[in-house]
Protein backbone atom coordinates (compact mmCIF):
# COMPACT_ATOMS: atom_id res chain seq x y z
CA UNK A 1 0.00 0.00 0.00
CA UNK A 2 1.25 3.48 -0.90
CA UNK A 3 0.10 6.73 0.65
CA UNK A 4 0.13 10.05 -1.14
CA UNK A 5 0.49 12.83 1.41
CA UNK A 6 -0.69 15.86 -0.53
CA UNK A 7 -1.06 19.58 -0.12
CA UNK A 8 -1.06 22.74 -2.15
CA UNK A 9 1.84 25.13 -2.15
CA UNK A 10 0.93 28.57 -3.29
CA UNK A 11 3.24 31.50 -3.81
CA UNK A 12 4.03 33.40 -0.65
CA UNK A 13 4.72 36.71 -2.30
CA UNK A 14 2.39 37.00 -5.23
CA UNK A 15 3.86 38.31 -8.42
CA UNK A 16 3.29 37.72 -12.08
CA UNK A 17 6.02 35.10 -12.25
CA UNK A 18 4.48 32.97 -9.53
CA UNK A 19 3.09 29.48 -9.84
CA UNK A 20 0.70 27.22 -8.05
CA UNK A 21 1.78 23.74 -7.02
CA UNK A 22 -0.19 20.75 -5.81
CA UNK A 23 1.04 17.29 -4.96
CA UNK A 24 3.16 15.63 -2.41
CA UNK A 25 5.15 12.66 -1.31
CA UNK A 26 4.37 9.00 -1.86
CA UNK A 27 5.24 6.82 1.10
CA UNK A 28 4.97 3.06 1.35
CA UNK A 29 3.30 1.59 4.43
CA UNK A 30 6.58 0.24 5.83
CA UNK A 31 8.21 3.67 5.64
CA UNK A 32 5.53 5.68 7.38
CA UNK A 33 6.63 4.82 10.87
CA UNK A 34 10.41 5.31 10.35
CA UNK A 35 9.79 8.70 8.71
CA UNK A 36 7.49 9.78 11.49
CA UNK A 37 9.95 8.61 14.14
CA UNK A 38 12.83 10.30 12.32
CA UNK A 39 10.84 13.52 12.37
CA UNK A 40 10.26 13.24 16.12
CA UNK A 41 13.95 12.50 16.62
CA UNK A 42 14.86 15.74 14.81
CA UNK A 43 12.64 17.66 17.21
CA UNK A 44 14.23 15.92 20.19
CA UNK A 45 17.77 16.64 18.94
CA UNK A 46 16.98 20.31 18.40
CA UNK A 47 15.06 20.72 21.66
CA UNK A 48 11.78 21.53 19.93
CA UNK A 49 8.48 20.90 21.74
CA UNK A 50 7.25 17.56 20.40
CA UNK A 51 3.77 18.93 19.79
CA UNK A 52 4.98 21.91 17.84
CA UNK A 53 4.72 21.59 14.05
CA UNK A 54 7.69 22.31 11.82
CA UNK A 55 6.80 23.66 8.42
CA UNK A 56 8.62 25.42 5.61
CA UNK A 57 7.28 28.80 6.72
CA UNK A 58 8.39 29.91 10.14
CA UNK A 59 5.28 30.91 12.06
CA UNK A 60 4.52 31.34 15.73
CA UNK A 61 2.54 28.57 17.42
CA UNK A 62 0.03 28.70 20.28
CA UNK A 63 1.40 31.94 21.67
CA UNK A 64 5.04 30.96 21.13
CA UNK A 65 7.30 33.08 18.95
CA UNK A 66 8.53 31.77 15.58
CA UNK A 67 11.68 29.64 15.76
CA UNK A 68 15.02 31.41 15.65
CA UNK A 69 16.20 31.60 12.03
CA UNK A 70 19.14 29.25 12.55
CA UNK A 71 17.06 26.67 14.40
CA UNK A 72 14.36 26.72 11.76
CA UNK A 73 16.93 26.40 8.97
CA UNK A 74 18.63 23.51 10.76
CA UNK A 75 15.30 21.73 11.32
CA UNK A 76 14.31 22.06 7.66
CA UNK A 77 17.73 20.88 6.55
CA UNK A 78 17.50 17.76 8.72
CA UNK A 79 13.97 17.05 7.49
CA UNK A 80 15.12 17.28 3.88
CA UNK A 81 17.99 14.91 4.63
CA UNK A 82 15.60 12.48 6.34
CA UNK A 83 13.32 12.58 3.34
CA UNK A 84 16.15 12.38 0.78
CA UNK A 85 17.42 9.19 2.44
CA UNK A 86 14.01 7.54 2.38
CA UNK A 87 12.55 5.54 -0.48
CA UNK A 88 9.64 7.97 -0.90
CA UNK A 89 8.70 9.58 -4.19
CA UNK A 90 7.61 13.07 -5.16
CA UNK A 91 4.71 13.80 -7.48
CA UNK A 92 3.91 17.47 -8.04
CA UNK A 93 1.99 19.41 -10.65
CA UNK A 94 2.62 23.09 -11.23
CA UNK A 95 0.94 25.78 -13.22
CA UNK A 96 1.54 29.49 -13.77
CA UNK A 97 -0.68 31.03 -11.16
CA UNK A 98 -2.59 33.25 -13.54
CA UNK A 99 -3.80 30.09 -15.26
CA UNK A 100 -5.38 28.98 -12.01
CA UNK A 101 -5.95 32.17 -10.12
CA UNK A 102 -7.90 35.11 -11.29
CA UNK A 103 -5.63 37.78 -9.87
CA UNK A 104 -4.78 41.24 -11.08
CA UNK A 105 -1.73 43.39 -10.46
CA UNK A 106 -0.49 46.90 -10.10
CA UNK A 107 3.06 46.54 -11.33
CA UNK A 108 4.44 43.54 -9.50
CA UNK A 109 2.08 43.92 -6.55
CA UNK A 110 -1.11 41.93 -6.25
CA UNK A 111 -4.20 44.09 -6.50
CA UNK A 112 -6.96 41.78 -5.43
CA UNK A 113 -7.23 38.68 -3.33
CA UNK A 114 -7.66 35.28 -4.87
CA UNK A 115 -11.03 34.87 -6.51
CA UNK A 116 -12.82 32.08 -4.64
CA UNK A 117 -14.44 30.53 -7.70
CA UNK A 118 -11.09 30.47 -9.48
CA UNK A 119 -9.50 29.04 -6.35
CA UNK A 120 -12.03 26.19 -6.25
CA UNK A 121 -11.33 25.48 -9.90
CA UNK A 122 -7.61 25.53 -9.16
CA UNK A 123 -7.85 23.00 -6.37
CA UNK A 124 -10.16 20.77 -8.34
CA UNK A 125 -7.92 20.77 -11.41
CA UNK A 126 -4.79 20.32 -9.31
CA UNK A 127 -6.25 17.44 -7.33
CA UNK A 128 -7.41 15.75 -10.54
CA UNK A 129 -3.98 15.96 -12.17
CA UNK A 130 -2.25 14.72 -9.05
CA UNK A 131 -4.62 11.80 -8.52
CA UNK A 132 -4.30 10.83 -12.15
CA UNK A 133 -0.51 10.75 -11.80
CA UNK A 134 -0.65 8.86 -8.53
CA UNK A 135 -2.94 6.28 -10.13
CA UNK A 136 -0.47 5.89 -13.00
CA UNK A 137 2.37 5.46 -10.52
CA UNK A 138 0.37 2.75 -8.71
CA UNK A 139 -0.24 0.93 -11.96
CA UNK A 140 3.49 0.87 -12.58
CA UNK A 141 4.31 -0.34 -9.10
CA UNK A 142 1.33 -2.72 -9.07
CA UNK A 143 0.10 -1.35 -5.79
CA UNK A 144 -2.95 0.21 -4.21
CA UNK A 145 -2.94 3.70 -2.78
CA UNK A 146 -4.67 6.06 -0.42
CA UNK A 147 -4.59 9.85 -0.51
CA UNK A 148 -4.13 11.89 2.66
CA UNK A 149 -4.57 15.55 1.84
CA UNK A 150 -4.12 18.52 4.07
CA UNK A 151 -7.51 19.88 5.11
CA UNK A 152 -9.09 22.07 2.48
CA UNK A 153 -9.53 25.72 3.37
CA UNK A 154 -12.88 26.99 4.68
CA UNK A 155 -13.55 28.61 1.31
CA UNK A 156 -13.25 25.41 -0.68
CA UNK A 157 -13.94 22.59 1.81
CA UNK A 158 -17.52 21.81 0.84
CA UNK A 159 -16.80 22.11 -2.86
CA UNK A 160 -13.72 19.87 -2.65
CA UNK A 161 -15.42 17.30 -0.43
CA UNK A 162 -18.19 17.01 -3.00
CA UNK A 163 -15.66 16.89 -5.81
CA UNK A 164 -13.77 14.04 -4.13
CA UNK A 165 -17.01 12.13 -3.77
CA UNK A 166 -17.88 12.67 -7.42
CA UNK A 167 -14.60 11.54 -8.95
CA UNK A 168 -14.42 8.28 -6.97
CA UNK A 169 -14.23 5.46 -7.67
CA UNK A 170 -14.22 5.88 -11.45
CA UNK A 171 -12.47 9.16 -12.08
CA UNK A 172 -14.08 12.04 -13.93
CA UNK A 173 -14.83 10.30 -17.20
CA UNK A 174 -11.51 11.20 -18.78
CA UNK A 175 -9.44 9.08 -16.44
CA UNK A 176 -9.95 6.34 -13.88
CA UNK A 177 -8.70 5.99 -10.35
CA UNK A 178 -8.98 2.24 -10.03
CA UNK A 179 -5.79 1.93 -7.96
CA UNK A 180 -6.75 4.49 -5.34
CA UNK A 181 -8.92 3.54 -2.39
CA UNK A 182 -11.86 5.84 -1.75
CA UNK A 183 -12.05 8.35 -0.10
CA UNK A 184 -9.46 11.13 -0.13
CA UNK A 185 -8.84 11.72 3.57
CA UNK A 186 -8.15 15.26 4.75
CA UNK A 187 -5.89 15.62 7.80
CA UNK A 188 -4.88 18.88 9.42
CA UNK A 189 -1.13 19.05 8.83
CA UNK A 190 -0.67 20.48 12.32
CA UNK A 191 -1.25 16.96 13.66
CA UNK A 192 0.60 14.93 11.06
CA UNK A 193 4.37 14.51 10.93
CA UNK A 194 4.14 13.19 7.39
CA UNK A 195 2.24 16.28 6.25
CA UNK A 196 4.85 18.48 7.86
CA UNK A 197 7.64 16.59 6.08
CA UNK A 198 5.64 17.08 2.89
CA UNK A 199 5.24 20.78 3.64
CA UNK A 200 9.01 21.16 3.94
CA UNK A 201 9.62 19.22 0.72
CA UNK A 202 7.07 21.26 -1.24
CA UNK A 203 8.45 24.46 0.26
CA UNK A 204 11.97 23.49 -0.80
CA UNK A 205 10.79 22.78 -4.36
CA UNK A 206 8.94 26.04 -4.51
CA UNK A 207 11.79 28.13 -3.11
CA UNK A 208 14.25 26.44 -5.48
CA UNK A 209 12.17 27.53 -8.44
CA UNK A 210 11.68 31.10 -7.29
CA UNK A 211 13.98 33.72 -8.74
CA UNK A 212 17.37 33.54 -7.02
CA UNK A 213 15.91 31.15 -4.47
CA UNK A 214 18.16 28.54 -2.90
CA UNK A 215 18.32 25.39 -5.01
CA UNK A 216 17.56 22.29 -2.93
CA UNK A 217 16.50 20.17 -5.90
CA UNK A 218 19.79 18.26 -6.33
CA UNK A 219 19.37 16.97 -2.77
CA UNK A 220 15.97 15.49 -3.48
CA UNK A 221 16.32 14.79 -7.19
CA UNK A 222 16.42 11.03 -6.68
CA UNK A 223 13.10 11.16 -4.90
CA UNK A 224 11.14 12.44 -7.91
CA UNK A 225 9.16 9.72 -9.64
CA UNK A 226 10.77 8.84 -12.96
CA UNK A 227 10.47 5.88 -15.29
CA UNK A 228 12.08 2.51 -14.66
CA UNK A 229 15.10 3.39 -16.83
CA UNK A 230 16.12 5.82 -14.09
CA UNK A 231 16.70 8.54 -16.68
CA UNK A 232 16.41 11.91 -14.91
CA UNK A 233 14.86 13.53 -17.97
CA UNK A 234 11.76 11.39 -17.40
CA UNK A 235 11.08 13.19 -14.11
CA UNK A 236 9.37 15.81 -16.24
CA UNK A 237 5.94 14.42 -17.05
CA UNK A 238 5.99 12.12 -14.05
CA UNK A 239 7.21 13.36 -10.67
CA UNK A 240 7.30 16.94 -11.87
CA UNK A 241 4.84 18.30 -14.37
CA UNK A 242 3.49 21.63 -15.50
CA UNK A 243 0.00 22.41 -16.74
CA UNK A 244 -1.91 23.25 -18.86
CA UNK A 245 -0.79 21.14 -21.82
CA UNK A 246 -1.28 22.15 -25.43
CA UNK A 247 -2.89 25.49 -24.77
CA UNK A 248 -3.11 28.17 -27.41
CA UNK A 249 -1.95 31.05 -25.28
CA UNK A 250 1.60 32.08 -26.30
CA UNK A 251 2.12 34.04 -23.05
CA UNK A 252 1.21 30.99 -20.97
CA UNK A 253 3.37 28.74 -23.12
CA UNK A 254 6.33 31.04 -22.60
CA UNK A 255 5.87 30.92 -18.83
CA UNK A 256 5.63 27.13 -18.88
CA UNK A 257 8.72 26.85 -21.05
CA UNK A 258 10.66 29.07 -18.67
CA UNK A 259 9.57 27.04 -15.69
CA UNK A 260 10.58 23.79 -17.40
CA UNK A 261 13.95 25.25 -18.33
CA UNK A 262 14.45 26.53 -14.80
CA UNK A 263 13.74 23.06 -13.45
CA UNK A 264 16.12 21.54 -16.05
CA UNK A 265 18.94 23.84 -15.02
CA UNK A 266 18.38 23.26 -11.33
CA UNK A 267 18.54 19.50 -11.61
CA UNK A 268 21.23 19.74 -14.30
CA UNK A 269 19.31 17.64 -16.80
CA UNK A 270 18.45 18.67 -20.31
CA UNK A 271 14.67 18.49 -20.58
CA UNK A 272 12.94 19.32 -23.84
CA UNK A 273 9.23 20.11 -23.87
Amino acid at each position, binding site marked *: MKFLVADECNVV*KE*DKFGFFMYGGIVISDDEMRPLSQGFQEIKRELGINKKRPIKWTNNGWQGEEPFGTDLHKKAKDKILTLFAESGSKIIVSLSPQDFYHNVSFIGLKIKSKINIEAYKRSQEYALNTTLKKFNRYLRETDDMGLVLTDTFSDDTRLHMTNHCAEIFPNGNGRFTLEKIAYPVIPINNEYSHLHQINDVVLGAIQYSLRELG*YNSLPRIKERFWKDVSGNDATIYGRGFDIYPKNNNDPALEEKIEKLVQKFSRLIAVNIEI
Partner: protein
Amino acid sequence: MKIQVGNIHEEFSRDTYWARIRFESDDSSKQSTVITCASHEYLWDKLGVRDLSKEDLEKWLNAVVEKWKAKEDSIFKEMVYFDVYANTEEGIENGLIFLKTITQ
Protein backbone atom coordinates in the same frame (compact mmCIF):
# COMPACT_ATOMS: atom_id res chain seq x y z
CA MET B 1 39.64 56.08 -11.93
CA LYS B 2 41.11 52.58 -12.03
CA ILE B 3 38.71 49.71 -12.52
CA GLN B 4 39.39 46.07 -11.90
CA VAL B 5 36.71 43.70 -13.13
CA GLY B 6 36.69 40.25 -11.56
CA ASN B 7 35.72 36.98 -13.16
CA ILE B 8 32.08 36.10 -13.66
CA HIS B 9 31.11 33.18 -11.44
CA GLU B 10 28.15 30.90 -11.86
CA GLU B 11 26.35 30.01 -8.62
CA PHE B 12 24.42 26.84 -9.26
CA SER B 13 22.71 26.89 -5.89
CA ARG B 14 21.00 30.18 -6.78
CA ASP B 15 20.81 29.89 -10.55
CA THR B 16 22.72 33.13 -10.84
CA TYR B 17 25.90 34.79 -12.12
CA TRP B 18 27.93 37.15 -10.00
CA ALA B 19 31.12 39.21 -10.07
CA ARG B 20 33.16 41.78 -8.15
CA ILE B 21 34.16 45.12 -9.59
CA ARG B 22 36.77 47.18 -7.78
CA PHE B 23 37.00 50.93 -8.27
CA GLU B 24 40.02 52.93 -7.12
CA SER B 25 40.72 56.63 -7.33
CA ASP B 26 43.64 57.69 -9.54
CA ASP B 27 45.78 58.48 -6.50
CA SER B 28 44.79 55.14 -4.90
CA SER B 29 43.54 56.92 -1.78
CA LYS B 30 39.91 55.74 -2.14
CA GLN B 31 38.44 52.38 -3.04
CA SER B 32 35.07 50.89 -3.47
CA THR B 33 33.80 47.46 -4.47
CA VAL B 34 30.57 46.61 -6.26
CA ILE B 35 29.39 43.05 -5.89
CA THR B 36 26.75 42.24 -8.42
CA CYS B 37 24.61 39.32 -9.49
CA ALA B 38 21.93 38.66 -12.07
CA SER B 39 19.37 35.90 -12.14
CA HIS B 40 19.25 33.61 -15.13
CA GLU B 41 15.66 34.73 -15.70
CA TYR B 42 16.70 38.36 -15.84
CA LEU B 43 19.50 37.72 -18.32
CA TRP B 44 17.29 35.50 -20.46
CA ASP B 45 14.69 38.28 -20.70
CA LYS B 46 17.21 41.06 -21.10
CA LEU B 47 19.43 39.42 -23.68
CA GLY B 48 16.83 37.18 -25.29
CA VAL B 49 19.11 34.16 -24.99
CA ARG B 50 18.33 31.03 -23.00
CA ASP B 51 21.77 29.42 -23.07
CA LEU B 52 24.04 32.24 -22.05
CA SER B 53 27.54 32.41 -23.53
CA LYS B 54 30.59 34.00 -21.95
CA GLU B 55 30.11 36.97 -24.30
CA ASP B 56 26.49 37.40 -23.20
CA LEU B 57 27.55 37.51 -19.56
CA GLU B 58 30.35 39.95 -20.32
CA LYS B 59 27.84 42.19 -22.09
CA TRP B 60 25.78 42.32 -18.90
CA LEU B 61 28.80 42.92 -16.68
CA ASN B 62 30.16 45.66 -18.93
CA ALA B 63 26.84 47.48 -18.63
CA VAL B 64 27.08 47.20 -14.84
CA VAL B 65 30.63 48.60 -14.92
CA GLU B 66 29.51 51.53 -17.05
CA LYS B 67 26.61 52.26 -14.73
CA TRP B 68 28.85 52.50 -11.69
CA LYS B 69 31.67 54.27 -13.52
CA ALA B 70 29.23 57.05 -14.40
CA LYS B 71 28.90 57.86 -10.70
CA GLU B 72 32.49 59.13 -10.79
CA ASP B 73 33.84 60.18 -7.40
CA SER B 74 30.55 59.73 -5.59
CA ILE B 75 31.10 55.99 -5.81
CA PHE B 76 33.70 56.27 -3.05
CA LYS B 77 31.11 57.31 -0.46
CA GLU B 78 30.71 53.63 0.45
CA MET B 79 33.23 50.82 0.60
CA VAL B 80 30.86 48.12 -0.69
CA TYR B 81 27.76 48.14 -2.85
CA PHE B 82 25.44 45.27 -3.67
CA ASP B 83 23.79 45.41 -7.07
CA VAL B 84 21.18 42.79 -7.93
CA TYR B 85 19.52 42.30 -11.32
CA ALA B 86 16.28 40.33 -11.13
CA ASN B 87 12.77 40.34 -12.57
CA THR B 88 10.94 40.34 -9.26
CA GLU B 89 11.12 42.05 -5.91
CA GLU B 90 11.54 38.65 -4.32
CA GLY B 91 14.45 37.95 -6.69
CA ILE B 92 16.12 41.17 -5.58
CA GLU B 93 15.65 40.23 -1.91
CA ASN B 94 17.01 36.73 -2.51
CA GLY B 95 19.93 38.17 -4.49
CA LEU B 96 20.84 40.50 -1.63
CA ILE B 97 20.78 37.60 0.81
CA PHE B 98 23.08 35.67 -1.52
CA LEU B 99 25.55 38.54 -2.03
CA LYS B 100 25.74 39.22 1.70
CA THR B 101 26.40 35.52 2.29
CA ILE B 102 29.36 35.42 -0.09
CA THR B 103 30.94 38.46 1.49
CA GLN B 104 30.74 37.14 5.04
